[in-house]
């Protein structure tokens, strides 16, 4: 069956919006990696917690996920601070820092996912806003995708400008290049890395709020999204802002078109295939340098 032009357009817009949410998730992971040089395996679990926060606040108090995103951000910022102080900082300067933090944050992911499972079971939950799709011209877009995508785009741009234009952004980029040389400028690298882990975790929290209106909220989403986030940043290039953008949008497309043409079952296959092809051509990822 050949889809009509409108269907294809609708598919593309939907993919771009979903991809934008993935971009926000990947940016969160990348800002942590950029400064700390640690891959936060628990990033997906952070997103899951943000999603649960949105779900419960909606379910119990009727607060819109777009409003409670602020709460998700703050809650996850606190968890990010804890992660930085206890699971990353003690290992700074160690030879196998990257491997250690990968394993430790993997442990954190398992812990968070299972605590969630214990508290709230595996029941599929989700925020159903019950709003009709938005009709733009000949296409109709699901509102959770539309709002979620727009919020994600706005936040990604805002954070990008912060990194590019402000002194704190310059300092973060300096620490990312060399902790030693950053210290000689007067920057306390521990303050910068704490700030970036907190920011990255807060972004994961917001991602969770946005995603709670699109996907089912379950403990398992923590591991699925964790792997997805890591796939995206490796695909795009670790630590690269452009990489998160390209990778996030590609995975968004792979998923949306995969679901449409092949069925949801083949999604993972499709994006791992994408990853395999890209890495065999450019092992550092599309925009990666390392």
């Amino acid at each position, binding site marked *: 069956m050949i889809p009509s032009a409108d269907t294809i357009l609708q598919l593309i817009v939907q993919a771009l919006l979903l991809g934008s949410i993935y971009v926000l998730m990947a940016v969160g992971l990348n800002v942590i990696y950029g400064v700390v040089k640690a891959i936060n395996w628990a990033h997906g679990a952070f997103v899951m917690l943000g999603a649960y926060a949105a779900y419960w606040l909606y379910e119990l108090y009727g607060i819109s996920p777009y409003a409670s995103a602020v709460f998700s951000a703050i809650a996850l910022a606190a968890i990010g601070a804890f992660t930085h102080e206890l699971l990353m900082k003690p290992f700074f300067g160690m030879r196998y820092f990257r491997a250690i933090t990968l394993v430790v944050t993997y442990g954190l992911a398992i812990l968070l996912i299972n605590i969630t499972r214990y508290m709230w079971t595996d029941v599929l939950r989700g925020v159903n806003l019950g709003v009709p799709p938005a009709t733009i011209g000949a296409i109709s877009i699901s509102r959770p995708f539309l709002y979620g995508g727009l919020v994600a785009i706005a936040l990604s741009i805002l954070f990008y400008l912060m990194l590019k234009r402000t002194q704190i952004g310059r300092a973060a980029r300096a620490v990312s290049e060399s902790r030693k*040389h950053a210290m000689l400028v007067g920057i306390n690298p521990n303050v910068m890395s704490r700030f970036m882990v907190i920011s990255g975790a807060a972004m994961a929290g917001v991602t969770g709020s946005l995603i709670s209106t699109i996907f089912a909220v379950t403990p398992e989403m923590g591991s699925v999204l964790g792997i997805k986030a890591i796939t995206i940043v490796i695909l795009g290039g670790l630590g690269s802002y452009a990489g998160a953008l390209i990778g996030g949008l590609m995975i968004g497309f792979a998923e949306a078109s995969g679901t449409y043409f092949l069925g949801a079952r083949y999604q993972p296959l499709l994006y791992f295939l994408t990853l395999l092809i890209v890495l065999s051509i450019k092992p550092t990822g599309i925009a990666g340098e390392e």
Partner: protein
Amino acid sequence: MLQVSEVDVSYGHFQVLSGVSLQVRDKELVTVIGSNGAGKTTLLSTIAGLLPPKRGEIRFMGKRIDGIPPYKVVEEGLVLVPEGRGNFSRLTVLENLELSAYTRRAKERKDETIEEVFNLFPILRERMHQKAGTLSGGEQQMLAIGRGLMARPKLLMLDEPSLGLAPKIVLQIFSILRRLKEEGITILLIEQNAHRALELADRAYLLETGRVAMQGRGEELLQDPRLRKLYLGI
């Protein structure tokens, strides 16, 4: 101004500096010369707070600074332009300069200092929107010195600013150092180019295998027969 007393530094079991004492007075240009591996870079790294001394003490403006982290040392007004220049290659020239006015004291005078740096190194103004990584070796060194000045240092420490540069550029760097000295900036300079450094310096120290082997006024050391033979090749 800077007082280094009886400092020992080691990497593991390997002792690099033994009982090194040195001082820099206000508005002086002091140079430390010595061959590769004599401990010159280690000395500056220790003063800047990158390495902890095993013994001895370091005082700056009367305050003990050994054992405090590098970013606190910078706040005191003691600034190191490190070996390898320490620029941020993925930041533009302008971003590098702006970033380097990081302390509150430096931030207040940022715009004024950038103007001074651009007047000192006009080429940096032309290249201000270029990534630092794309500059030539000489331009990189100018940026590194410019970054040092952005911090409004009370004492500027330079680790081999002429290393790896073409002779013409070396001359240019030394004339800039002379100018900074005339403007009253206190400088501690480490150089392998002993001849030029001694000519410029008020006072000098010769470091040999981690010990101060000789010290005196620049021209005194220039006249010393043993030093001339070993380090100046005359």
